[in-house]
């Protein structure tokens, strides 16, 4: 068998020079320290994204958009199709875990200041991937066309409309009309299965390429450590095998969640019934939903909600641009302000989510 493998390698080598790739793989290494654990979350996010692509394609085989068919086809998948309930449940659970993992990944990069020079572009592309992931979540939520999804989309898109000038056109662009209707469903479907995947894949490719080009980030103060204290782990095969083991664990957790707590289908959306009591957005939108509740109806000339939405916009933009306002980015020195800001953001998100969950 070894002969065949050698022959195959020789065949490829004659056509593509594999030596630089091998050298690159042999040189790639990962710093080993207390925080090494956090390095795994990028890989976990990637793994969950792959699961989303596979299960998403499987769901596509049966799903039919449209007010008369969407809910029925999801019910068909769950009730009639063999393992349909499992595929659908995994898709929903994996979506949530992916958002969670992406958040953990982002905060770990933030606190280790891995966004600093030369990795600013990696940070920017990662932030865009986070926004796209939330877009996936928001658009995918509507597709089963159930009551919760219908009203969540109504509220979510209405929030866009509170913005001055651009709000109304944006609302109509999102909804494909003045109201959430079957046209909205078609549009979200196109967004969820075509536009977002295409854009996401391109940016993910760039993100991963940047990670490879720059190598793993080394923590602050690493350079000043004596050489014998700087321990590394080879990326191939040591880190990759650990990665794979963790992926296996994640897959098992996912399977347990999907089987033990199958995702519900709810009730079919009806535009002419009242919004049900206890209606809430998905957990990763909860902190914004809760925060907006605290804004008064009017703040000066503006609607309180518009002020809130704009504050979140500004906050998000500042977060995105952190490599620019972290004044110690170029020198790589410690910056405690960054850490405090990050801790505040985490506490803010956790506290408001907890209040919103009640």
């Amino acid at each position, binding site marked *: 068998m070894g002969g065949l493998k050698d022959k195959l390698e020789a065949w490829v080598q004659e056509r593509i020079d594999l030596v630089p790739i091998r050298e690159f793989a042999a040189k790639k290494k990962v710093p080993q320290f207390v925080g090494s654990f956090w390095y795994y979350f990028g890989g976990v996010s990637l793994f969950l994204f792959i699961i989303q692509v596979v299960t998403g394609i499987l769901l596509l085989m049966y799903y039919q958009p449209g007010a008369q068919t969407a809910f029925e086809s999801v019910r068909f998948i769950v009730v009639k199709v063999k393992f349909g309930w499992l595929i659908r449940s995994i898709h929903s659970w994996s979506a949530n875990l992916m958002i969670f993992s992406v958040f953990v990944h982002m905060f770990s990069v933030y606190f280790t200041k891995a966004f600093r020079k030369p990795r600013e572009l990696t940070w920017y592309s990662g932030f865009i991937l986070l926004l796209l992931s939330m877009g996936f979540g928001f658009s995918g939520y509507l597709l089963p066309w159930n009551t919760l999804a219908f009203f969540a989309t*109504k509220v979510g898109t209405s929030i866009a409309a509170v913005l001055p000038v651009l709000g109304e056109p944006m609302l109509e662009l999102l909804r494909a009309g003045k109201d959430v209707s079957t046209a909205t469903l078609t549009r979200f479907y196109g967004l969820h299965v075509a536009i977002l995947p295409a854009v996401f894949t391109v940016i993910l490719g760039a993100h991963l390429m940047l990670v490879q080009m720059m190598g793993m980030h080394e923590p602050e103060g690493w350079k000043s450590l004596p050489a014998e204290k700087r321990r590394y782990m080879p990326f191939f095969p040591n880190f990759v095998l650990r990665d794979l083991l963790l992926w296996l664990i994640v897959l098992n957790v996912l399977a347990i969640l999907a089987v033990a707590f199958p995702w519900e289908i709810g009730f079919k959306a009806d535009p002419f*019934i*009242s919004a049900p*009591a206890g*209606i809430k957005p998905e957990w990763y939108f909860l902190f914004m939903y809760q925060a907006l509740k605290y804004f008064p109806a009017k703040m000066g000339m503006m609607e309180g909600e518009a002020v809130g939405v704009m504050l979140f916009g500004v906050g998000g933009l500042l977060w995105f641009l952190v490599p620019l306002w972290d004044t110690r980015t170029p020198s790589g020195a410690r910056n405690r302000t960054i850490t405090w800001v990050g801790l505040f953001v985490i506490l803010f998100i956790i506290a408001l989510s907890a209040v919103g969950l009640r």
Partner: protein
Amino acid sequence: MEPGVDQNISRRSFLNNLLGIGVVGWLGSVLFPIFEYLKVPPQSEAEPTSVVAAKFKDLKPNHSVVFKFGSAPAILLNGPDGKMRAFSGVCTHLQCTVQYRPDMQKIWCACHNGMYDLNGRNIAGPPPKPLQEYKVVVKGDDVIVSKA
């Protein structure tokens, strides 16, 4: 300065500008139809001015019904006082559909805990405006709601 060289540079920049204008024009001619395509054409739907919302005998005092009025939901409620009132069912906050809470004797929106009194006035929570009120006429057993 040699006039010939100068002329060459200006010819190049002239052509570059021309090319730039061409690119912008081309982009515009591609993007404009896409943008226009994404705007949904207005559909001329005959909006009814009145509708039979419920049967009188089906709607007990302190109860309500949400019904379809044209393309939007509306709510008809028989108040605790036995008086029929009808409003737009669309919450003035973020457009969820409201419901009547017999326990509170208020119109309530579940999405953000908005509250309206029996006259549709916004009294608590985030709704910025009262609900639009409709006219209610009882004809025989039919409760007819119309836009006033």
